[in-house]
């Protein structure tokens, strides 16, 4: 056969083509790489990593807008360290691997000084290794399950002890609740919160048969059976309450069903940890009067700082009906802390800023002053609000002072001996029994 002959001819042709395409590929890579130094250090870049499309856009888009507003405001004040701030917005599209990819892009390609972002636990877990590896800073603004303290992450949302436990205490004291339905969406935040609450309730003498735990999938929309079941569970002669860790989208049909089946707050109150002003914006709240939510911020809280913020927010979004909510306040506090820490450190160098952050204080919108703790969580007030007819909350109870966030819950077997301290111990999971830093 003339195989050999054909082969050389072929190789030559293939080689030429391959060469051309390789050149093109390298060219693309180059142009991607070359984009980096194009904009010299005239600005300080701030990464915004919130989903603008996909299922989480419903919650996260608002946070992107808040960040843009805060950055604009800071620039109006003259920027930071004499430079303007520049927001870099990316869309991780509610896709968890994409969160990691975009985080990497923000840090390596855009060279941002800090990133404000993520909503779900899984998105945070997905970007964690990236922030550790590339040594950058993430501000995470959403209430979460705790059990984590990382050097590169600052948790400005509530830990379970800043939301769940005060809420349950309130129900026990004020409403004399003896029987509990822990209703959640099946993911890690409800699972952990319910584990903590279960242990806590049992430590308060609640019998196991008086606790019912149930999980439904994401976006569960047919609540007939569950609401009927809650009514049944509540008919055992003891005052019953529902502790809801139902996630965003599933709440609207849940509350609609509660309202229609006539479960009133005076009979079986529902206290929710994931339902804020945004979520209620999609519901007719008249039948929900009196159901509760526990947060560290409510739009209805009457302080000058809050009023000023809401006015600015409405003006910025050009929407007089726009509501504000708890994670937004977390970003406000987190951003203020970051600005202070950068000013204190005199640089945006991550190591210096990370060291400067603990101990930094910033006024929150509810009249107090939050402080970044050594475990990278912040101090927060806890409010219990009852749903009003207009979809806002009426604060019926609040903590005396500010509650420090605890990274590790003392009610869980795995974490009761752990503590986090990035100032003295330089460790996120220090085991007080074995006196060792794990991980």
């Amino acid at each position, binding site marked *: 056969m003339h195989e050999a002959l054909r082969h050389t001819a072929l190789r030559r042709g293939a080689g030429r083509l391959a060469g051309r395409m390789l050149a093109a590929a390298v060219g693309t890579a180059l142009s991607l790489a070359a984009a980096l130094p194009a904009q010299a250090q005239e600005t300080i870049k701030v990464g915004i990593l919130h989903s*603008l*499309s996909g*299922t989480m*856009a*419903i919650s996260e*888009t*608002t946070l992107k807008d808040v960040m843009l507003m805060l950055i604009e405001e800071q620039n109006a004040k003259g920027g930071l360290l004499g430079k303007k701030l520049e927001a870099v917005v990316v869309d991780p599209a509610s896709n968890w691997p994409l969160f990691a990819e975009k985080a990497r892009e923000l840090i390596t390609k855009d060279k941002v000084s800090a990133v404000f972002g993520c909503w779900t636990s899984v998105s945070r877990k997905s970007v964690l290794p990236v922030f550790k590896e590339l040594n950058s800073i993430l501000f995470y603004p959403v209430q979460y399950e705790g059990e984590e303290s990382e050097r590169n992450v600052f948790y400005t949302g509530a830990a379970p002890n800043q939301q769940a436990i005060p809420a349950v205490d309130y129900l026990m004291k*004020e*409403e004399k609740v003896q029987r509990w339905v822990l209703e959640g969406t*099946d993911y890690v935040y409800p699972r952990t919160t319910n584990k903590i609450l279960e242990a806590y309730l049992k430590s308060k003498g609640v019998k196991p048969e008086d606790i019912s735990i*149930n*999980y*439904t*999938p994401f*976006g*569960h*929309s*047919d609540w*007939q*059976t*569950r609401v*009927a*079941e809650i*009514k*049944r569970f*509540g*008919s*055992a*002669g*003891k005052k019953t309450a529902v502790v809801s860790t139902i996630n965003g*989208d599933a709440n*609207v*049909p849940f509350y*609609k*069903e509660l*309202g*229609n*089946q*006539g479960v009133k*707050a*005076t*009979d079986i*109150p529902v206290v929710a940890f994931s339902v804020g002003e*945004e*979520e209620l*914006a*999609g*519901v*007719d709240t008249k*039948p929900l*009067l*009196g159901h*509760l939510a526990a947060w560290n911020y409510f739009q209805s809280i009457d302080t000058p700082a809050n009023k000023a913020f809401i006015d600015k927010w409405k003006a910025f979004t050009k929407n007089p009906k726009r509501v504000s909510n708890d994670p937004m306040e977390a970003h406000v506090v987190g951003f203020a802390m970051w600005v202070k820490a950068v000013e204190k450190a005199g640089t945006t160098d991550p190591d210096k800023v990370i060291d400067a952050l603990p101990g930094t204080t910033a006024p929150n919108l509810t009249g107090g002053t939050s402080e970044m703790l050594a475990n990278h969580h912040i101090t927060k007030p806890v409010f219990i609000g*009852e749903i009003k*007819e207009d*979809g806002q909350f*009426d604060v*019926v109870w609040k903590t005396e002072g500010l509650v420090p966030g605890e990274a590790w819950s003392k009610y869980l077997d795995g974490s009761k001996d752990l503590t986090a301290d990035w100032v003295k111990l330089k460790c996120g999971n220090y085991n007080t029994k074995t006196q060792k830093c794990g991980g």
Partner: protein
Amino acid sequence: MHLISFLAASNRCRCKTDGRAAPGSLPRSRGRGGEGAAARPILAIACLLLFSLLAGPSIARADAFDDALTKFLADSYADTEAGVTALGAGGDARAFAVVKALQDGRLLADPAGRRVLIDDGGVPKDAATGAVVSPAPAAADLKRVRLNNRLRRAVEAALGALTLRAPDPARRLDAAQAVFKSRDASALAAVEAALAQETDPAVKAALAEARAAILITSPDAPEAARIEAVGTLRERGDQAALALLSGLPAGTPATVQGAADSAASAIRNRLQVWEAVQNAWYGVSLGSVLLLAAIGLAITFGVMGVINMAHGEMVMLGAYTTFVVQEAIRQKAISLSIPGTEIGMSLPLPAALTLDWSLAVAVPLAFVVTGLVGILIERSVIRFLYGRPLETLLATWGISLILQQAVRTGFGPTNKEVSNPSWMSGAFEIGQLAITWNRLWIVCFSLTVFVLLLAMLRFTRLGLEMRAVTQNRGMAACVGIRTARIDALTFGLGSGIAGIAGVALSQIDNVSPNLGQSYIIDSFMVVVFGGVGNLWGTLVGAFTLGVANKFLEPFAGAVLGKIAILVLIILFIQRRPRGLFALKGRAIEA
């Protein structure tokens, strides 16, 4: 001031008279209730005369009412509760107006003026005198008296005690139910008095239950009365009765406890039967939702063979149409404007158009809007892809992404509030089965849509032409049917039906850009399970899946139940590869 105490005294007197009369009225026959009522004013006048002579003691009573009112000034839940309880127990005639105002959020405290006002349709009236306050105090000085859940319960109990003998039977019924819930032992005498005079059988039963609820939980009541109360509650036989019977206070005598236990287990058994009925109903209701979601797809996918991934977005557009209609009704005007400019116009809407009518407007509008969008999609994209069903999948998937993002850009990513009209709110009971109005209407609505669609396909010329084109395009063209036009209309019809499904789904689910995504897979399952190209299959498929799901859910939980259903569908397709009702002959496969 004198006049006030005077009036207070007279009222107090009236109640006292009633209170005194109550035990005596027990043996009275029902017919004499009217007489008692007629006698009341005379007694009141007598009292008035009596107390006008003895004005001194009246001041103490008046102080009780005023004291109660001052409690509302403190803005403390504990004080407010004390005030409400005092008003409920005191029985002052003005108490009702005050407590009612408190319940409605119309009670205003004026701490500076040390007085409590009632907001009567914008006019501030002094709660103590009922006189209009002028000049009206500045709004900033007034504080709405706030309620929490515990207080709301106290308010309900107080209102119950105060309205047990209201002239309106509906209000008496509410009052009796409020007392049943509060089981306030101090209301026992009032309940018994009311019971003796009651003529309305429903209210009478409610009062008897309220009395039973008080008796069964009060340890001092005689044993016989408590056992009788168990019987009454057993008759009632619902979850509230079960709650009472299974939560007796400690130290209850064994006889009462025994009777209660057996009653409770009887109620439990009865409730179990109802639970099965309930599951069936829930299944039907879920089935109707699935039917609505799938029926449009049964046209576009089932009849036309277009794998329409944008189907869910048509549903979403229908839901947003509902939102737009409701928003226009709330604004009382249709506003049209070009975003970012000042150019726009506003057409007023008739005032009679309330939210209750919103769905009547939204259904045809959603049909037209989504139908037009459907026709547009068919004309611009899908008509080029006939005969390549799997490529329509790709194109419609792209369209669905575009539509989602368009809605997200236009309306914002957050949920939109779509409220239930009053006729779709709440529930009614058949036996122990609570049926919510919105679910019932959705079941009716889905069946109506189904029947109309079927009739349309069978009896109209358009339907005939549609069937002709889908069965044999070439032949249809030969007999003069304009197939391209029919294609567009068929796709528009399927889309339009998806749109009106969106109107219905907006009543039970989120109205957000993601709405369609959550129904698309279920819709495909229903159509495939029922048999592509057969509307009856879709109907049967939807209800079968709905009921099966709801019977599995209590045992397996929502997630496992759904997984089980999916596995069952997969296995079922193995047995009958073309679904429940397979189309014979030249199938949709092409």
